[in-house]
């Protein structure tokens, strides 16, 4: 299963004071707090780790069709490789492990989490929330050979989005994320 999370770094910086008392304690494990506080750019790692946890949460919730929970400290992230334009790591939740890839620019972070180390996906970014669903529907329609006008994106009882064709679920794995000026989706190019 896959999940993604996008962060508009400008919005994140304007809305949050991660130095606020209790902020790190409520969201991050002691090991994660150490990574953040020992780094040269704590704000970057506050958001990179958050994106890793959030993307993994989405993948995990989808895998087991779980009810929503706000339990960020149960998702334990580790960093493996930190480069100028990406950060590779893993996130553990219970017995499950997710591989994460954070792509970074000065404006935004986008994290992809997956159970497999390497996955074949389509990734699409836009600054228009309205166009993202129609773009995703077009892609799914190409993949599944279904007319786009017969496809819909809906949410199930656990608020997990899925594609449907004439009211019946279509087997496709995807994840959508919005934040500030940015939206992104990922779509797995594999059979379910």
């Amino acid at each position: 299963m896959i999940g993604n999370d996008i962060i508009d770094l400008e919005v994140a910086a304007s809305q949050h004071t991660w130095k606020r008392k209790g902020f790190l304690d409520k969201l991050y494990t002691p090991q994660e707090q150490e990574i953040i506080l020992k780094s040269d750019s704590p704000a970057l790692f506050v958001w990179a780790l958050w994106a890793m946890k959030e993307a993994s949460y989405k993948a995990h919730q989808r895998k087991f069709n779980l009810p929503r929970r706000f339990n960020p400290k149960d998702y334990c992230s580790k960093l493996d490789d930190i480069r100028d334009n990406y950060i590779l790591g893993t996130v553990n939740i219970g017995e499950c492990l997710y591989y994460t890839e954070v792509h970074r620019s000065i404006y935004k972070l986008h994290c992809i989490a997956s159970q497999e180390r390497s996955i074949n996906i389509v990734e699409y970014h836009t600054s228009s929330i309205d166009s993202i669903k129609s773009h995703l529907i077009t892609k799914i329609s190409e993949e599944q050979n279904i007319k786009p006008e017969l496809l819909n994106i809906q949410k199930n009882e656990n608020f997990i989005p899925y594609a449907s064709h004439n009211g019946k679920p279509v087997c496709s794995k995807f994840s959508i994320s919005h934040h500030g000026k940015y939206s992104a989706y990922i779509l797995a190019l594999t059979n379910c």
Partner: protein
Amino acid sequence: MTDKEILQKLKKIVTPYVQNEEGLNDFDETTDFLNDLKINSANLVDVILDVEDEYKIEIDNDSMNGMLTAGDARKIIQRKLRNE
């Protein structure tokens, strides 16, 4: 403190983080922070910290995990105020 008073205060606390203003019009027990108000998940922690400051209570992890609607928050606040 009555349920209504707590809900009124909660509405005030969440307002700065709301991305869907319409969701505030019929703010009640069933209002969902993420789905109805479109509060970003990273902002939920700000709501929780603001609630802690407002009521001088500490919201433990287990309680935080289930704080998804205004009704959930109201019950947690009352439980903490009773020191349970």
